[in-house]
């Protein structure tokens, strides 16, 4: 069975596995700057996986989307986040609502669920990257978990962007990427979103003197 998988597909599977591993590492990471590094690394791995898929299949637009990933998720977004962290003086450890080992265990369960959900779809796919669809869904779910369990606004945003990485991997693995115009649109939205959040962070800090979202639990129905 293993012999039937071509080298390129194995390479893509390897990269996808690294992306999943990085998602777990992000879940376990307590420091904000290290978290941004991990996010950039995840973007880089995603870019490499897309590149291998592009070389193997000869799909021209995959080259573009690999380039887009490199520019946006490896360089531009981490740079913006770095500057935000420096300017806002976010320091110290990231407070987690649930302790890290428990979070990791919940993460494991999520990965199993993701693989089971993706199984029927992977069987229908004919791309060389189809094995990674389960991984992609798992990355999305782990990012979601990170957003739920973290209390700093900036870590929630990294979680959000990591979720986008997972979705991008899903698009590449199931269909060799979305049409170019859609991918450009998504990239634009993500970029504008991060810029707006940057503005927004300053508003939050001016108002609360902190980026801790525990201060933002006043709006309730009572």
């Amino acid at each position: 069975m293993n012999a039937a998988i071509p080298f390129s597909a194995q390479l893509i599977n390897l990269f996808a596995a690294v992306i999943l591993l990085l998602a777990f590492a992000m879940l376990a990471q307590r420091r904000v700057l290290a978290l941004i590094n991990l996010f950039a690394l995840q973007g880089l791995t995603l870019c490499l996986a897309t590149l291998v898929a592009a070389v193997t299949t000869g799909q021209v637009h995959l080259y573009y989307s690999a380039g887009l990933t490199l520019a946006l998720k490896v360089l531009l977004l981490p740079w913006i986040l770095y500057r935000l962290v420096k300017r806002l003086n976010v320091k110290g450890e990231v407070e987690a609502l649930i302790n890290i080992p428990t979070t990791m265990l919940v993460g494991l369960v999520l990965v199993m669920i993701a693989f089971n959900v993706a199984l029927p779809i992977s069987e229908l796919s004919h791309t060389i990257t189809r094995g990674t669809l389960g991984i992609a869904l798992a990355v999305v779910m782990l990012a979601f978990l990170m957003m739920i369990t973290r209390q700093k606004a900036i870590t929630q945003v990294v979680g959000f962007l990591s979720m986008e990485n997972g979705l991008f991997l899903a698009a590449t693995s199931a269909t060799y990427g979305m049409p170019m115009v859609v991918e450009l649109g998504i990239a634009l939205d993500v970029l504008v979103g991060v810029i707006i959040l940057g503005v927004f962070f300053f508003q939050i800090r001016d108002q609360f003197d902190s980026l801790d979202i525990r201060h933002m639990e006043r709006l309730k129905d009572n």
Partner: protein
Amino acid sequence: MDFFILMLAIPLVSGALLTVVGERAWAPNLNIIASLGTFAAAAGLTIEIVANGPRFAFGEQFFIDSLNVFFVALTAFVGLTTSIFSGPYMKNEREHGRLTAPRLRLYKGMYQLFMFTMLAALTTNNLGILWVAMEAATLTTVLLVSLYRTPASLEAAWKYFILCGVGIAQALFGTILLYFAAERVLGASGNALLWTHLIDVKGQLEPTIMALSFIFLLVGYGTKVGLAPLHNWLPDAHAEGPTPVSAVLSGLLLNVALYAILRCKVLADGAIPNAFAGNLMIGFGLFTLLVAAFFLSRQKDVKRMFAYSSIEHMGLITFAFGMGGPVANFAGLLHMTMHSLTKSAIFFAVGHATQKTGTQLMADIRGLIRINPLIGWGLMLGTLAILGMPPFGVFASEFMILTHAMKYHPWATPILLLGLGVAFAAIFGKVQPMVFGETEARRLPHAPAITPVFLHLGIVLTLGLYIPPYLTRWFHEASRMLG
């Protein structure tokens, strides 16, 4: 000049212009003139579509048929009246020191861009672009929700961004799965996400993938519609943002998100047997209706209460479209129109009332009818209309939904009646003392714009008494598009 291009270009250009020139004395007028231009172009487009049938624009990337031109007309109309309303409202806010010139500039620029993203979402033929435009609509409104920069408004905007961001990420996954299903039939070209191409091959799309895709799309876009249990952002965003923003969020954005679900439902219905998509929507709709109805009675903030009322009505509309068929679809579309017009009218009245009394707490708002009879009557009539009292139009659409449910889904009738009954008791009991009763309140430096309130209510009343055959034909045409 093409009406369609004009309709998209006017809000885009004027949004940029209003951002660049900043807050001038004539900026509110420019905002209104731009909205008027957009509305005129949308009206021209509507007449063209009703006369000549569906058309494409920009190759096949945009597609306008009787279904979406109906939403376009509604969006442009409420966009116009809200801009008229926001003129004096925002001037008063500035006089009261709640807003500064740079923030008003942000407001006007973003308002026009928000109109642009909604109109683009409604008219695009590409389901990928639909997603992009929906996300852009969230982005343009995040900074509007936090316009007052109070702790509560920042919290509301943050919740709005994160919850809708997560929701819309689910919708993206759904879109990817849809593309995956489509690619197997249509091939890996840019055309595989074009709705007009998908509709031709909907019978051949793989049912398992489509089912999964529709679940993700419904949950994702459903977050923006305000479907329970993902509705948490909605009351906060409506209560803490400026009132014109509440009016367009409630009256327009929720509709656009629901429109996105409807387009996907047509495809899912073609691919999946057993009315899977419809049943899912019936379930979500009823659950949303009940949750919202019971939360209504616990509200103290007037804008928050009417936000829950929007959730309730969105639940009812989702239920109607879930039942499907020409009658229920007709009722759903009619109810969407009535809800948009009535709810934005209510928000206009509430906006002026809260400005006069300086509070959003219902317990502190008393005797509106003495302070300003027009505002008082506007709020009272709007409330009666939204609660489904005859002869207002909401009654007609709710009646159609109820009778249709009795015939085809009798088990759902008691749930519907319970939800509507609880909502009636909750809202009427709170609005009545706000309108009548004793009060002391200040004079506003700028006379409020009452015309939009009564214009909307007048239309709702007229449509409740008599729907012109021209409009009926158009609605029938649109509900046929939904299968």
